[in-house]
């Protein structure tokens, strides 16, 4: 679908189901502005602004809340660098069938029917603080790590797909076919559910997610990754300067993916 977005001026056919109704979008944006993230000023400083590698043998810390801030106004139409980077990093390809497509990350096109304005934005697992996918999982495979990253433990996933139904963002997908040639750091296989991992294997090494890196390297700087709990982090500072939206803020899920310029 991202390939198509390059050529099609209007909403790409595949994107139709992903597009957010503009009327509702305005409502969401309004709600978001009211509930703009508030960083507790008293929070003590655990880390400097930089992302640091966690030493070997140390568990993820609950003092951290990883998040991504996406400035939609800086996201070029037709650009799919983040999607390509994710594919490269995590070794997935699109299935070519909308119903069973892989949903690690996708470009969503918004169109204001009244004005004709079109905007695209990257969309992935929103890493909710109150994730419905975790509530419904019968085996505990769908879980939230201490540092806020929502994951599937594929070792305990039985492929029931309740989490896919529960996710209001349609951010998870099921692996229907056998997978070969996986990346060593990104195992994936038939019969389990998967979604954006916020590149947990990179973050644990002190790197930023592949999508954010690709976007930054290209000079677009649409995405900022960092610790939302750390008032000195680049992401927290940026979030403190602009009004940010959380998609479907009305659901009260407190996503870790923030959008500005929506």
């Amino acid at each position, binding site marked *: 679908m991202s390939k198509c977005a390059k050529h099609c001026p209007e909403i790409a056919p595949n994107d139709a189901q992903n597009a957010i109704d503009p009327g509702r979008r305005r409502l969401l944006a309004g709600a978001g502005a009211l509930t703009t993230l508030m960083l507790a000023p008293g929070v003590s400083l655990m880390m400097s602004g930089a992302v640091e590698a966690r030493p*070997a*043998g140390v568990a*993820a810390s609950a003092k951290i809340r990883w998040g991504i801030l996406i400035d939609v106004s800086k996201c070029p139409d037709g650009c799919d660098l983040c999607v390509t980077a994710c594919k490269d990093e995590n070794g997935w390809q699109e299935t070519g069938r909308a119903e069973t497509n892989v949903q690690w990350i996708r470009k969503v096109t918004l169109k204001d029917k009244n004005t004709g304005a079109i905007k695209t934005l990257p969309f992935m697992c929103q890493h909710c603080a109150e994730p419905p996918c975790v509530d419904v999982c019968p085996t505990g495979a769908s879980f939230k*790590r*201490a540092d806020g990253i929502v994951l599937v433990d594929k*070792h305990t996933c039985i492929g029931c797909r309740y989490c896919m139904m529960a996710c209001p963002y349609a951010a998870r997908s099921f692996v229907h076919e056998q997978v070969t040639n996986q990346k060593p750091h990104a195992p994936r296989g038939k019969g389990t559910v998967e979604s954006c991992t916020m590149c947990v294997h990179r973050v644990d090494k002190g790197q930023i997610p592949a999508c954010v890196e690709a976007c930054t390297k290209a000079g677009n700087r649409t995405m900022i990754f960092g610790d939302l709990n750390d008032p000195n982090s680049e992401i927290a500072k940026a979030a403190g300067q602009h009004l940010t939206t959380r998609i479907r803020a009305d659901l009260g899920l407190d996503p870790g993916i923030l959008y500005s310029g929506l």
Partner: protein
Amino acid sequence: MVLAGVLLITPGSAGAKEMSPTSPTSPWGPKPTKAFKGDKCVEPVDVMRRDHMNYLLHQRDETVQQGIRGKKYSLRQCIECHAVPDKQAGGERTVEPFCGECHKFAAVTIDCFQCHTNKPEKVKSTEALPSGPLPPGHPTMNKKTSNSTNTGSWKKKTLFAALDPALQQGSTCNVQVR
């Protein structure tokens, strides 16, 4: 604790190896291929034969659920050392002639490699390798690492592991393989 330490420092003794069913001179039993890299396993060989599945499953849960990385029973590390040129894979290095050899003999079926690649990392730089302590003598060992368990002799490290309750996988492991 002292006793455990002594037991662990005792290297996978030569005697045990001669009598083992996997000894090259033995007419029966599986013959897993020799390690491609490294001269010592992460535990003595006799311990590994018995307990590798418990170590793996325990560390798997720690890594995925708590994000604990860089400990020694990483599946990727096993593959780095134990993947050997495999005729069935067109001469590419895979772990099949090693893991598969015993498992076929014992009629064990593992699903790990439906998701995990059984090939080692295509190394571009040391940066691509998992961080954390590697067994001493590991050819890919990052000399600059600050982790103290990475330096020193194997014996010292094994002793360290024996004395550090966090590394006493046997006692803290709550994963049971059947």
